[in-house]
Structures are given as C-alpha cells and as structure tokens.
C-alpha cells in the first residue's frame, strides 16, 4: 500500500484521489437508491425550481431532482467506464502479452490490426460502432472498449517484450539481485505501472466519451440519467433554468479532472523517467 501513501503525498494525487472517492461515494449512494429524492420521480408541482435547500441543484422540466439525477448519472458513467475500460484492459493485456510472447506472425497480425483501429479518431470509431449496433448503453461500452483496446495492447507489448528478452533482468543481475525479486519487481514496474496509469487515463476518457455520445443522443437513452443527456436537455432551457446546464457540466468536468490528476500523479510516482521533469 505504499502506492496509496505515495499518492497521498503527491499534491495532484491527493486532490484527484479525493475527487474520485467522492464520486464513487455519490455513485454508490445513487445506485443504492440513497439519493435525496427519487431521481425518476416527476414532482409535478416542483417543475424547474432553482437550487434551494430542498433541491440543492434545482429541478428539471419534469420536476425531477437534479442532484439525485446527477448522482445516478455518475453511477451510469462509472458502470459504462469501468466495464469498458475493464474489457479493454483485459483484452489489451492478453493481446499484448501473446503478441510479445509468440512474436512473428501473431505479433504482426495483432499489431497491424491495432494500427488499423488507431487509424480512426477515437470518437469516429465509436460513432462507426454505434452506426452498426444502434445507440444504447451497451453499444457505448463496446465502442469505448474497442477504441481503448489498441492503446492497452501497445502499453503491454513493449514492456512484455523486454521482459521476455530479459534485457533488464540481466542488467539487474549484475547488481546482484535475486532472480525472483528481479522478475516480480520488474514486472511490477514495467508492466503494471504503465497499465495502472493508462487505466486511470482511460477512465477519464471514457467518462468524457460516454457523456459526449449521450449528448449526441447516441448513448444512454431517456429516462435513464446520464450527464451528457442532461446537458443536451438543458440546451433549450438554458436561459430559463441555467442550473440544468451548469451542474451536470461541472460534474463532468470535475470527474474527468479527478481521473486526470490521479493519472498524472501515478505516472510521476511509477515512471522513473518523468520524475526528473517533475522535480
């Protein structure tokens, strides 16, 4: 758990970690139904109420509590994000490791296929997948996973290749370390470290993409709560009810900020190369 301690010592890590924890808590409460109000309940007498003590973020056109919906939406973003990034990281690790291990033809096939996927701007690849599969939560998960798989594959393949060739195993041995120590230590440093950083950044990106796709009407469908959808709905009400725009907008921003800060901190802590730049 030295990683957590290191993270807490790092200034951006501290802020980022707090944001993520806060969001996780909000998401958890939202999923457990412990929101201040029922996020789906339409309170007909309390439509378009500005923020107050009862409704801290106001209510929407239907008289639904925005704060509760934001909590529910964070959960939705996390579900999509964790699933998609989990799939991408698993798939990418398997592909990257096997590519490095078997080499030759398999390596060529995998890496060229990944090049093809990387040849699309990410949002475009996601849109293409949605064009085929139709909009919806599961399509968003698939799209984000497919977009991120090549990145994980690349991240894993490089270090895996060097572990295979034992470049630094040999290097370390000259310093007199034990073999087992070397392997675990280097696997940790060279594989798990970049993977952890990448997972954090991928989560930031998936948060953004889920919101973006929903904003375009291609992600989460109503009446489920999604930050992007809330923003899209707020457009025509912007002047009458700015709180509908501002709160979900800030939530997306802060959420992404949390993951980016944490990702940066992790990179500083785990990657010896960047330490110098940070010093």
């Amino acid at each position, binding site marked *: 758990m030295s990683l957590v301690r290191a993270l807490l010592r790092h200034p951006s890590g501290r802020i980022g970690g707090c944001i993520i924890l806060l969001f996780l808590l909000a998401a958890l409460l939202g999923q457990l139904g412990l929101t201040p109000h029922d996020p789906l309940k339409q309170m007909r007498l309390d439509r378009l109420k500005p923020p107050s003590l009862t409704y801290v973020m106001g209510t929407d056109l239907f008289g639904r509590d925005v704060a509760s919906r934001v909590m529910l939406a964070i959960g939705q973003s996390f579900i999509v994000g964790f699933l998609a990034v989990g799939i991408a990281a698993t798939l990418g690790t398997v592909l990257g490791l096997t590519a490095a291990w078997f080499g030759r033809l398999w390596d060529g096939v995998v890496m060229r296929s990944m090049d093809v996927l990387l040849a699309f701007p990410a949002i*475009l690849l996601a849109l*293409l997948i949605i*064009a085929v599969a139709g909009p919806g939560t599961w399509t968003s998960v698939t799209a984000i996973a497919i977009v991120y798989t090549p990145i994980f594959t690349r991240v894993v393949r490089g270090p895996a290749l060097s572990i295979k060739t034992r470049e630094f195993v040999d290097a370390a041995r000259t310093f007199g370390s034990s073999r087992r120590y070397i392997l675990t230590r280097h696997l940790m440093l060279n594989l798990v470290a970049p993977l952890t950083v990448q997972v954090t950044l991928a989560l930031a990106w998936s948060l953004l993409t889920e919101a973006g796709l929903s904003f375009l009407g291609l992600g989460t469908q109503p009446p489920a709560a999604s930050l992007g959808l809330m923003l899209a709905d707020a457009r025509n009400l912007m002047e009458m009810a*700015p709180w509908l725009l501002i709160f979900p907008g800030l939530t997306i921003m802060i959420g992404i*900020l949390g993951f980016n800060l944490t990702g940066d901190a992790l990179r500083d802590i785990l990657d010896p190369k960047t330490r110098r730049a940070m010093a």
Partner: protein
Amino acid sequence: MNYLTRRLLTFPLVMFGVSVLVFVAIRLVPGDAITAMLGTEAGLLTPEQKAALASYFGLDQSWFTQYARWIAGVLSGDLGLSVTYGKPVLDVILDRFPLTLQLALMAMVIALGTGLPLGVFAATRNGKAADLGVRVLAMIGQSTPSFVVGLLLIYFLSVGFGVLPAMGQFVPLWQDPLTNLGQMILPAITLGFAFTASVTRISRSAMLDVLSDDYVRTARAKGAPARRVIWRHALPNALIPVVTLSGVEFGYLLGGAVLVEQIYALPGLGRLVLEAILQRDYALVQGTVLFIAFNFLLVNLLVDLAYVALDPRIRLGGN
C-alpha cells in the same frame, strides 16, 4: 529497412485494413444490404425491386467480389450515392470538408498560439506561483469536454454579456472572410480548448527537459542572456514533442468537430457523419468515415516525416 521506408510501406497496408474494417462494419448492420445502402427508403421497396437492386449492385455475389468492386470504385473516386442528398458521396464530403478543415486549423493556431507561450512562460517560472497557476489552469482545461466548454461559453456570452454567438447562416471563407471568421472563432476556441491545455503542458515539460540539458547550461554559464538562451537554444528542441502532439491531435480535432459542429450548428463534415448515422444513410457513413480516417493517417504520416526531418536520430534507429 530504415524507419522512413517502413513507415511509407505500412501506410497503404493500414489504409487497406481500414477499408476492410469499414466495409465489414457496414455489412454487419442489421437488416439486408439494400437497407444498409438505401437506409429507410428501402422500406418502401417491393421484394422485386429489392432483388433487381441487389443484382444491379452485385449484392448477390460473394463478399470478396463485392469488396473488390467497392474498393475499385473508391480508388477511382466513386464512394457511392448518398440517399439523403441524392448526390455522389464524394461531392457531399467535399462540400462539407473545407469548413471542418478550417475549423481544425483555426483550433490548432489558437492552441499553439496560446499554449506554447504559456508553456514556455511556466517553464521559466518553474515552481513559482505563476507556474502553478498555469499548470492548474492547463489541468482543468484538459479535463473539460468540448461540449461543456461550448455550452458554457454560449450561456455566459448570451446571458451574462448579451453578446450572442453567431450561429446559423454560415458564410464560407471565400465569400466574406470577416463574417466567416466571426462565425468560426467561438467554435474554434471551443474545439481548441483542451488542445491548448495539452500544448501548454507538453511544451512546459519539454522546455524543462531542455533547460536542464548540458548545452543550455553551458550557454547560460557562458553568460548568454536568458531570453536568448530560451528562444534560440531551448525552444527549437522543445518543439519536437509539440509537433508530435499536434499531428496526433489534428486527427482528433477532425473527429472532435462532430460535437462542436453540432453545438454551433455548422454544416461541416462532423455533423455530416452524425446525420448520416442518425438518418441511416450508410453509403454516406461509409464514405465519410473512410475519408476522415484517410486524412488522419495522412496527417500522421506527414508528422512522422516532419519528425524525421527535425530529429536525425530517428532515421537510423528503430521505433
């Protein structure tokens, strides 16, 4: 094989892969190929009409033959016919592309124009309050999605200041440059917002790297004025990662235009992709996606070539 040759050789290979992926993806659309081709209009056809169309387009042949026919068409500039527009897909794309290109270029100019000086400035104030301020701003900037920036910008400008972003009635650059720039500036800022932040961060850390390098220290020790050291010695070297980033980001700007064009109601390529998907005009989806991917790859290739020109070490080494 040196890097340059290998890079040039993989380009057509990857492009081939991209075309296969796009072709296969469109064939995976639920429903038959006629529906995929004609979108909703297909619902109004009789079975006989569908059969006639299928044989006309060679849909009764193998996928391989179909792909060969399609790719032959693509190579001769025939991307098919858009149902919604009743025009060749390429014509529609070329109609919309200039706007998106202009938007991406403007976003790029804004990003480099603000990001570089900010980054350099922060690097020279390393560790001081100003540096911290720039870094915090850059971090926030990088974390704000374009659609949030766009919506908040529109809201605060229109409600807070009574200044209204000009939307709609788009005027092309060659018709009225001033009006056009007035219409494009907000979308360009929106699109370039996160990119500006990335440029700031990258140029700051690259600058710090370079400033700690020996030759810069030497130059300083020799008593060269600080400003001269920064601009003459350090900056050119710090530019390399910025160029790389710009190349990659340019492609993303092309993609990111989808959201920005949607928010500002601009008739560009991004909105075209979105409309094509929503209206199920699959020939158009296929064509636009292929077109954007091609441009993305091309820009990346050019950036790599520029990279080689900037940094001779790469020519010799591998990846």
